[in-house]
């Protein structure tokens, strides 16, 4: 009974916010690494800029998607 009361009293919204924040950290690291490596690659081979850019954008979309999965979970959990 007391546990049920406790569960009713606790709001999960702050935890959802923390989850979204953690996801943002992960996505930040991921996109940072992709961007850094893409820059390095373009500096080494400027003639490949177009190809490197487009594949970097695709990879960023993958990383971003994982972060957004976390955002969706945070939206649902309340």
């Amino acid at each position: 009974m007391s546990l049920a009361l406790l569960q009713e009293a606790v709001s999960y919204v702050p935890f959802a916010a923390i989850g979204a924040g953690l996801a943002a950290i992960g996505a930040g690291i991921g996109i940072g690494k992709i961007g850094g490596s893409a820059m390095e690659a373009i500096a080494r081979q400027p003639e490949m800029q177009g190809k490197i850019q487009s594949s970097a954008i695709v990879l960023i979309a993958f990383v971003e998607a994982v972060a957004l999965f976390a955002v969706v979970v945070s939206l649902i959990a309340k």
Partner: protein
Amino acid sequence: MQINTIKTLLLSLFLAISFFGFASDNSEDKTNEKEFNVTEMIMHHVKDAHEFHIMDWNGHAVSIPLPIILWTDSGLVTFMSSEFHHDDLGKIVVEKNGLKFVKFHEEIYFANPEAEHGSYISHDAEHHAINAKPLDFSITKLVFSMFLSVVLLILIFGFSARAYSKNGVPKGIAKFTEPLVVFIRDEVAIPNIGEKNYRKFMPFLLSLFFFIWINNMMGLIPFFPFSANLSGNIAFTFVLALITFVITTIVANKDYWKHIFWMPGVPVPMKIFLAPIEFMGIFIKPISLMIRLFANITAGHIIVLSLISLIFIFKSIWIAPVSVAFSFFISIIEVLVVAIQAYIFTMLSALYIGSAMEEHEH
């Protein structure tokens, strides 16, 4: 180039300012009644609705009514959503064909015979409605928005097609669409599907790209016939992903299934271990397509509206420049993001189709 940049900036500024206008219209009314609820406002915008809400004016909602089409045990029932008089709490009953309907949280339910606290809806412990529901085929805000995008696409590509009728030189809007079509062909279809088979899938890939793109863009335009969050609706992305899944499964050749269930060149214990994972992968790929588009577009809408809502959270006009500047910035990023998301969806669909038709040499 310079002029184009300035034009883009001006356009985006205009968009950001109209967002600002929309949000302030929305809130003026609510502060009179109760505290402005940011979550409620954002969720109301992000979800589907039976009427197209434009703004609130002196405490009255200004909205376009949309038809409600219901399939019940006694046949088809149709009426306009204006008969609910903007009620969304199950308080106003509409009687048609001897059946009583109420609207509660944008869903149509059969009404209870007796009202309880003014509402004809029964709730369970978690405050969900437990009344029976008719099958709802209504032209909702999102369906309306989808029809509009289809009309726009037919117009754009009808004119593009006609531009080629005289000689092979594009003119008018075809100058805009041709590079995009060529881009999808040369950068998406041919590298992923292959020179041999790509032609069959071009209509699908082009429809996918332009349909997603135009709906994403329409979601970014913040005034009446646009602004619906269509591509941020999970049902919409689900159907698109389902089509990709069905096409991938149908065109898949022997090698594709072999690489899933009994991949060559791998030791037998590893094959047994990998086969279920690969099998789940068949479904996880389209599911990730579905969630990626849904989450990206919904997140974009939520971010812009949250930034605007900062003004009403802090209750200070001095926050307004900051939040308008931020939403201006985000709006520009969103223009890029929606194009990238349409591209990614198309590219990954092409990739999955291509991988299902790949011929291996061993």
